[in-house]
């Protein structure tokens, strides 16, 4: 009976093992950010409101971007910040009141600059990879014909055995 029960315990163990681990450093980072944001919100409320509203595209991008490395969020966030930065400076120059914040937010120009910068970031993220992929494909095509030329030369010099034995060796290597 006990012998039958034992294997059942294993999947549980593997499931525990398979669960994503959150490292202590990451946990500490998030905690620090939360504390920092909370403190900043408490001491710089007007700036925080502006940043929160202005950086909403970044927040949305971080939440929706599931890609490894969060490249879309990264592309949007820096330019989004660049779009928000002139208004933060203006706010600080005018004394950091909530009224000044709302005054800034009441102007369409503010929204256009903050979200436009984020849009530029998104555009770069959206269009540039396609251009890069086209370039990579073009370059690969050229490399491909170079490599095929090299193969042809090897076959001419060494005969078909060079291919047969190379593939056999590679296969053997893979199996071993």
């Amino acid at each position: 009976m006990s012998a039958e029960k034992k294997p059942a315990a294993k999947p549980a163990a593997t499931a525990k093992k398979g669960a994503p681990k959150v490292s202590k450093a990451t946990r500490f980072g998030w905690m620090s950010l939360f504390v920092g944001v909370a403190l900043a919100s408490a001491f710089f409320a007007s700036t925080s409101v502006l940043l929160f509203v202005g950086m909403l595209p970044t927040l949305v991008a971080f939440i929706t971007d599931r890609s490894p490395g969060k490249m879309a969020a990264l592309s949007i966030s820096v330019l989004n910040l660049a779009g928000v930065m002139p208004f933060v400076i203006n706010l600080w120059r005018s004394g950091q009141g909530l009224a000044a914040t709302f005054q800034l937010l009441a102007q369409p120009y503010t929204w256009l600059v903050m979200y436009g910068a984020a849009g530029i970031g998104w555009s770069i993220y959206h269009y540039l990879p396609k251009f890069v992929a086209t370039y990579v494909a073009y370059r690969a095509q050229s490399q491909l014909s170079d490599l095929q030329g090299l193969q042809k030369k090897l076959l001419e010099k060494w005969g078909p055995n060079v291919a047969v034995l190379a593939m056999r060796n590679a296969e053997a290597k893979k199996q071993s």
Partner: protein
Amino acid sequence: MAGVPVDLAGRIEIFPSAPLPWLNEPHAKAYAARAKGESRSTLYALICDEGLPVRGEAFANFMNSDSAALVRFRDQGVVYWPLTDQAEQIVVLSRPAGPRLDQLLAEPQQPMEDQLLVQFFVRPMADLLIDLAKRGLTHGNIHPGNLFYNTRLNEVQAGEAVSGPPSYAQPLLYTTIERGQCTPIGRGAATAADDLYALGMTGLVLALGYNPWANLTDEELLRVKIDRGSFFGLVGELRLKGSLIELFRGLLDDNVRRRWDLNDLDTWLSGRRPQARVSENDLKPSRGFTLNGTDYNSLRGLVHGLTKEPMAGAAVIESGELDRWLVRTLSSDRHAGLLKKATSVFLDGNRTATFQDQLVARAAIVLDPQGPLRYRGTALMPSGAGYALAGLMIKGGNIQPVVDIISSPLTSMWVDEQYEGRGDHLQTQQQIEQSRAYMEKRTIGFGVERVIYEMLPAQPCLSPLIRKSQCRTVADVLTALEKIAGDNVKREPIDRHIVAFLMARERRINQAMGSMLGAPEGSADRALGIVRLLSDAQSRQGPENLPGLTNWAVHMLEPAIKRFHQKELQDKVRGELQRLGKGGNLSALLEAIDNPILLAEDQQEFEIAMQMYAQTVKDIEDLQADIQNRAAVEGRVGQPIAAGIAAVVGFLAIGMVVLLSVMGIYL
């Protein structure tokens, strides 16, 4: 002399258009011949039967004999013989000075006077045998059909004894019982005792003036000799003069220990009486032994019967009937003991398909040690095994019994039982032991073929490829291969016979080459092995220039060329070989193809090329994947680049905003 003569090495001219039938041997035809430069034909050439091994190794010794009682051996060799359209082995001899004695005895003659017989026949023959003995030779073919009447000297002259196997043509009347029991081709080298027996029997016929036993068959003659003894059985009621009786009794004694030797004959010829030889008397059974309805009244006769009917023979041995007869009727516990010793272990062992034959063969050896080795219908003397093997192989006969005899312990048993005075058997045993070792090795260069060439030093190569050329030396083989090279390039220039022949005739050839030659046909190793063997043979004995054979080797070496991986190198080596092929030197060919440094370099470069090829295959796969799956490239390459560029642009913009604000410029 009419017709175009055939030339033998520039020394002798032979005339195919001038046959000399009266000088024919049963296995060799005679033709007129003359020495180069002589105007008169005083010689004759015997064209040896292609189907029989000859006793060529003894020729040189015979040629050195200057005895007047022997025809002069003048020359030997191989010539192209137009009548058979192939090469033939020939023996050239001086023409005898008179007719054959059997021609004279065709009609009964007056009995020869004692003195005349001695002067005309016994003394010249004794002198001849003594002369031959000094040269380590025996004749082996003494009988009236091979003796000539030398009219000039009024004495006999013995004919040749080398154009076939030893004693092959000797009629059974003139052979001892044991040699008469042999298959003619397996009689082996005669001993002086055998020659003395033949001398005695021939003398007896001459003394009588005719052959009274001409009407008896060989089996009848053998039976008389065995049952009643050669002298008493054959002479019987015939009248002989007293002075000769002693001579014939001494020479025709069937017991080799009692038979006169050359000293005894010499003593008798000098008018003295030879010392009596003491030996165990032949046992006489009180009653015969009946085997399959035939009565045998002597032990030797019974053994002969057992070997003729091995099934019945084995049955009486197994049942103990033979043992009881030996003890009770022959009164010989010694023979019964020998039989038991020879067969008991064998009887207790595993029974194979040849059990009966082996059992009878063992019994025959101990009960009739003087007799030949008798096994599965073949009877031979151990020294005749090589001739029997070669003869059977040439004619496509069943060689298995002879192979079995050589491979089995029968020969050693036989030698152990021989009369200790016969030292030649020890030499035979050594030869058989060596042959057994060769037989056990199955690789090319050994086996039955090797045994033939080891046992028969003058045997031409029996390879079907070059058999018609009658090659007797390594150089002959290479020359013969050179001749057939043009038509045979698609097959190999060797077979088991050629390899065995070359290894036997040239000891310096690496004997371990057999394993290399054992590689599969068409492989590089085998091709290299063949060329190595042939080049070794050429450098040691062969002709210097063999363009045909070298070109043949070039064709065969294609698999060896392909050991080089680089095609350019292959073409280079191929071109080099073709160039060297015209030079006719096999060693040069070998040097060009068997270059270990070049091979190692080529292998090293090939391995690098293989790695490169494998890498290109992997790279091409990757590139094709990039081309086909652009979305992945976008994600893997494009997005990080885009993120990087966006980040750089963003940070520059932030920097610029900060800088402008510091400068007092606000957006």
